[in-house]
């Protein structure tokens, strides 16, 4: 057993040598050591791996900074951890935060450095106009500056199973464009037993409330969906279109032409395994279905109600953006490193690679133009649906999203109340009124702490 001993001895010697060198060179080595930049993300799977890869590529390109991209749990857990780290005085430099968390971050003015400000302080050129307009509107201020940098952008679309359509005698090249058409198609699918469930949805609140609002240019609340001020009140329950949508789901649930399959992305498996013939879903699911769905499927824009005036409008952005944390001990050099890494992430080659690899939408106009000119969307018509609904759809006063604190919680109020309605324990109207009442209580509490902060 000489090997381990030798190895240990060698390791000890190497360690001692390293320590001696460090002592001898002292301050000089500290200067040569790259500056650490921490980035936390909430992505798993392909998206997460790709983002980690960009960090490594950036490190190979230069030796002043060392970026570490790490997964710290799903967005809510990651956010709680980052906030705890902020309170302890050592938050990550960059944090990826999902759409619904944006309002909370915007309310924490002292905790973040707006991205436009980061680039300005670093002396790097930054034009918010480089980002696609919907994302710019979602994450920006009225003066056009950006608070966070849009990165993984998605929107809601309808995926449908062409094989099930054929089996039900429906035209597989004519997906339903409106909700009444979808309802009819789903009922036909059930009646001819082409699938066990006609239609399901992921991300209930995001799609059936937020995206639904944008698609019909209907406000969720007053003060331009919360952009005008923290005193915004939610008003969606008094809008008959939102009520009608929930009522439609309740009616369809009865004959399984709609089947509720759970919150967040839970329903996705039931489309992927052929159980449900249609699903409203994030465009980000494209990659998974391309790889795993064993049937012919298509993508269509999110349906709308033709009787709502002016509909359809564009959908709104989802996904996540990158936030830069503020902390008392942050140096100018670190800020420069953060700016340079963000600059790398938004560069056209990275954006193109990101869109092609993960199925997320390109966040910058240049990347979108490049992919269009290259013929990527002509060759991949399924990938073209999401970006064209988002960017080329009609823009209205309420298509640009919302800005509310505690929105993750408010989404869950909506989930809970609609679940109760689907269980038959309350009406569609009651569900929305309860969600709205609880949501407004949370908004008032948020307003109180936010006003106390600023």
């Amino acid at each position, binding site marked *: 057993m000489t090997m381990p001993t030798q190895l240990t001895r060698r390791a000890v010697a190497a360690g001692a040598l390293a320590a001696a060198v460090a002592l001898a060179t002292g301050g000089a080595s500290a200067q040569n050591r790259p500056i650490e930049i921490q980035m936390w993300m909430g992505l798993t799977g392909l998206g997460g791996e790709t983002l980690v890869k960009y960090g490594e590529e950036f490190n190979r390109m230069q030796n002043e900074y060392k970026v570490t991209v790490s997964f710290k749990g799903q967005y809510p857990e990651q956010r709680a951890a980052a906030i705890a780290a902020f309170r302890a005085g050592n938050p990550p430099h960059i944090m990826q935060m999902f759409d619904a968390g944006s309002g909370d971050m915007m309310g924490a003015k002292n905790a973040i450095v707006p991205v436009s400000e980061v680039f300005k302080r670093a002396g790097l050129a930054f034009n918010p106009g480089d980002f696609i307009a919907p994302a710019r509107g979602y994450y920006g201020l009225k003066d056009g500056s950006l608070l966070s940098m849009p990165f993984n952008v998605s929107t809601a679309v309808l995926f449908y199973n062409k094989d099930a359509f054929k089996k039900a005698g429906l035209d597989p090249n004519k997906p339903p464009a409106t909700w009444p058409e979808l309802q009819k198609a789903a009922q036909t699918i059930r009646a001819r037993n082409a699938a066990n469930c006609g239609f399901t949805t992921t991300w209930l609140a995001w799609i059936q409330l937020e995206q639904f609002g944008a698609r019909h240019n209907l406000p969720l609340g007053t003060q331009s969906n919360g952009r005008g001020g923290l005193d915004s009140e939610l008003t969606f329950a008094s809008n008959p279109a939102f009520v009608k949508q929930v009522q439609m789901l309740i009616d369809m649930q009865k004959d399984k032409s709609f089947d509720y*399959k759970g919150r967040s992305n839970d329903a996705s498996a*039931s489309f992927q395994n052929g159980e449900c013939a249609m699903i409203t879903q994030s465009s980000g699911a494209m990659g998974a279905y391309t790889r795993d769905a064993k049937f012919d499927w298509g993508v269509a824009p999110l349906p709308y109600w033709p009787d709502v005036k002016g509909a359809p409008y564009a959908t709104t952005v989802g996904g996540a953006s990158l936030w830069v944390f503020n902390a008392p001990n942050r140096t100018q050099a670190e800020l420069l490193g953060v700016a340079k890494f963000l600059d790398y992430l938004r560069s056209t080659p990275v954006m193109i690679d990101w869109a092609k690899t993960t199925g997320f939408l390109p966040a910058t106009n240049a990347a979108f133009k490049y992919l269009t000119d290259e013929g990527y969307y002509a060759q991949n018509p399924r990938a073209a649906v999401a970006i064209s609904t988002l960017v080329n759809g009609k823009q209205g006063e309420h298509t640009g999203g919302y800005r509310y604190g*505690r929105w*993750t919680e408010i989404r869950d109020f909506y*989930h809970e109340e609609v679940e109760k309605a689907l*269980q038959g324990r309350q009406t569609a109207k009651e569900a929305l009124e309860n969600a709205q009442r609880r949501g407004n209580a949370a908004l008032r509490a948020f307003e109180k*702490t936010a006003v*106390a*902060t600023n």
Partner: protein
Amino acid sequence: MQRRVVFNDKLLPYLLLAPQLAVTLVFFFWPAGQAIQMSVLSQDPFGQSVTFVGLENFREVLADPDYVASFWRTLFFSAMVAVLALVPALVFAVMAERVIRGAGFYRTILVLPYAIAPAVAGVLWLFMFSPSVGIVAYWLKKLGVDWNPKLDGTDAMALVILAAAWKQISYNFLFFLAGLQSIPRALLEAASIDGASEWKKFWTITFPLLSPTTFFLLVVNIVYAFFDTFGIIDAVTSGGPAKATEVLVYKVYYDGVHALNLGSSSAQSVILMAIVIVLTAIQFRYVERKVHY
């Protein structure tokens, strides 16, 4: 001359206790102290505005109908988990006691689930009962049962109760088995000689003599259902649908981590802390005295 090692008898006990005390202080007392401190403060998540509000958070929590509903739900959940974990465990223990050949094998099999982490146990059950891909859900559908724990609150509750109870059966089994082995043979033999049936012997001798063990396990199981089922619930239902499986400990997590409502979440933790202190006190006062080792 005798060689004797003399320790400084004042210092040594403390030195030996120090590691355990340090762990307890850092991982139990410190967070508990912080919870108490934060329960009387109102603050934004980033800690930029912190105000002392006294018992306001407690008042709000206790006046919240959702909290009260969650409390009753937790009682129901705990009672069901305790019963479903105790009864089969007792049956298994009685059976395993009678087995002569391969006793070690059966016992090992019965103890195995205890070694599985709660979240893993949760995922296991979630997978079997998942409406889209689960094998048991598939059977239930064949039988004509409209099984959907994602929408039906009763289905969801049944699922988390089953998963939580299943994981605790092993623990109860071990204690019941030990309890059975400590019952004096002479009593059982005497009863046999008097012609008592197995059933009669169980109810008049075994069960009463097991009562200290049963009572101890009841308290332990309730504590388990109250506090240690977080992983299972998080993995299986995340407290849904429509709060149908949101027990107190899950609500603490949700309000703290998802809603970032630190004051309310801390106040709820303190209430839970009070409950566990009471349960422990009951256990020490009424159980420890009566258990014969």
